[in-house]
């Protein structure tokens, strides 16, 4: 009854694939070289990788929803990380330990993350077209506010009694807090060993639940509204969608998820340096997502998993490769930092360039169409 209309994509699929996934391909090649060079046995690379994947994936997944709503890479997830850290400070002060301590931290951090997310969302709405750099600067700005709360607020205005997390002067939190009471409590909740490699089953359960939530969320009306807003703000507005509210909601959800992600991350590491463990969160999560082949307007769960594996293999391998190659471990360290920033700069630039080329092709296609029909009659 309905004849299938032939689609009119011009570019041949292979070239299209190459451009689309250029970043992951380059990355795979770099890792392929560095892996043998580093001299690490496959076994302990996999073990290290398993830990890193389990503690970072949740954070990277938190980036998906703002991309869907057209807000680009949400550098503002650092605010979620701050909310998580504040809640961890409270449960350490109250001496709440074990899995209930972790869950309580997640519970009390949710309202804080919602407030931070709402604040960031409002600001991003006022900077349409420049969301990413504004999000980036907001995270720096909030770092200042965070310091006011934690370095000066806690201990006098906000009651903190536990002496071993307070600074000697009586107020302000120490630079490093040990979270032994909740260290790897989630990872070892359901212990499982495959060969010599421990698998944090509970953490992966959390990750799987989040993946299901994201897939389910895309099917809801709100998810569809967000996609519409992401595709075209004006069309969404004329069709009656409250564009501003939807965008803020996407940031709030992302900030709350990032807050849980940071708690899972710190739970695995076991110590928290209060004032800079959240700074690099945004950069590494976004770099990993971009390495997975995501772009500023299109990102899905497969990008997350490809990205986290590739990115963190590079992370594990490059210092050793640097040592073997140049005899300088420090070299590998800087190479790691360079690759993370470089991959973001490269994929953002590639995306912006492709956007201009695609718009040019679209314009040309319409022009040729008009020529073809008008010349005909």
């Amino acid at each position: 009854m309905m004849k299938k209309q032939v689609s009119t994509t011009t570019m041949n699929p292979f070239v299209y694939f190459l451009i689309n996934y250029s970043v992951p391909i380059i990355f795979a090649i770099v890792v392929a070289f560095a892996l043998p060079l580093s001299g690490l046995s496959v076994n302990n690379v996999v073990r290290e990788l398993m830990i890193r994947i389990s503690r970072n994936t949740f954070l990277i997944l938190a980036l998906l929803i703002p991309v869907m709503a057209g807000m680009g890479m949400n550098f503002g997830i650092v605010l979620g990380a701050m909310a998580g850290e504040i809640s961890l400070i409270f449960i350490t002060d109250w001496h709440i330990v074990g899995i209930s301590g972790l869950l309580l931290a997640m519970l009390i951090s949710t309202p804080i993350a919602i407030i931070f997310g709402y604040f960031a969302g409002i600001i991003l709405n006022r900077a349409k077209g420049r969301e990413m750099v504004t999000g980036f600067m907001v995270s720096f700005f909030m770092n200042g506010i965070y310091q006011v709360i934690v370095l000066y607020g806690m201990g006098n205005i906000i009651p903190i009694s536990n002496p071993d997390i307070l600074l000697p002067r009586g107020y302000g939190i120490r630079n490093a807090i040990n979270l032994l009471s909740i260290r790897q409590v989630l990872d070892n909740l359901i212990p499982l060993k495959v060969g010599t490699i421990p698998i944090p089953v509970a953490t992966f359960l959390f990750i799987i639940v989040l993946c299901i939530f994201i897939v389910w969320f895309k099917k809801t009306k709100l998810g569809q509204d967000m996609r519409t807003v992401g595709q075209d703000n004006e069309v969404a507005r004329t069709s009656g969608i409250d564009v501003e509210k939807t965008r803020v909601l996407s940031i709030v959800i992302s900030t709350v998820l990032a807050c849980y992600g940071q708690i899972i991350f710190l739970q695995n590491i076991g110590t928290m340096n209060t004032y800079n463990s959240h700074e690099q969160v945004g950069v590494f999560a976004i770099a990993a997502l971009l390495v997975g082949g995501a772009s500023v307007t299109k990102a899905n769960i497969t990008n997350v998993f490809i990205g986290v594996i590739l990115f963190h293999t590079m992370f594990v391998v490059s210092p050793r490769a640097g040592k073997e190659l140049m005899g300088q471990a420090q070299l590998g360290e800087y190479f790691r930092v360079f690759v993370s920033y470089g991959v973001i700069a490269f994929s953002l630039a590639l995306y912006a360039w492709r956007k201009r080329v695609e718009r040019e092709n679209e314009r040309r296609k319409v022009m040729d169409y008009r020529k073809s029909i008008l010349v005909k009659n």
Partner: protein
Amino acid sequence: MLKKRFVIRIVLIVLLVLIGMFLYINGKEHKVIIDNKEIIVNDDHYKATADYKVWLDNKEISLIEKDKRIVAMITGSNHKIVIESIDNQELKGEKYERIFKLKNNESALINIPAMINFLDDWIIKTS
């Protein structure tokens, strides 16, 4: 319709608060000091007679020798302490068991000789 939704949300919030409190209580860490030392209760002397193996909330803690003190951390509010005398690695079968409750940020001081002789102040709670 709206009223029903309003009620559901209120119930949800209450539920969340309850879960929070439950987690707080369940996860709260308390300090327990156990003394295997002589105790004088209205001038009766109860001496420490043997070494004991100690279990707290059926988790083996450690061995406590005569006139020694050990410190342990336990979580949650209601607890059970089990001790059994031990003489160079063999269990002598003398078992004593007591249960006790700890509120908010209380810590406990347990005295084994008082416990064996079923005295009242075998446990002193301080917050």
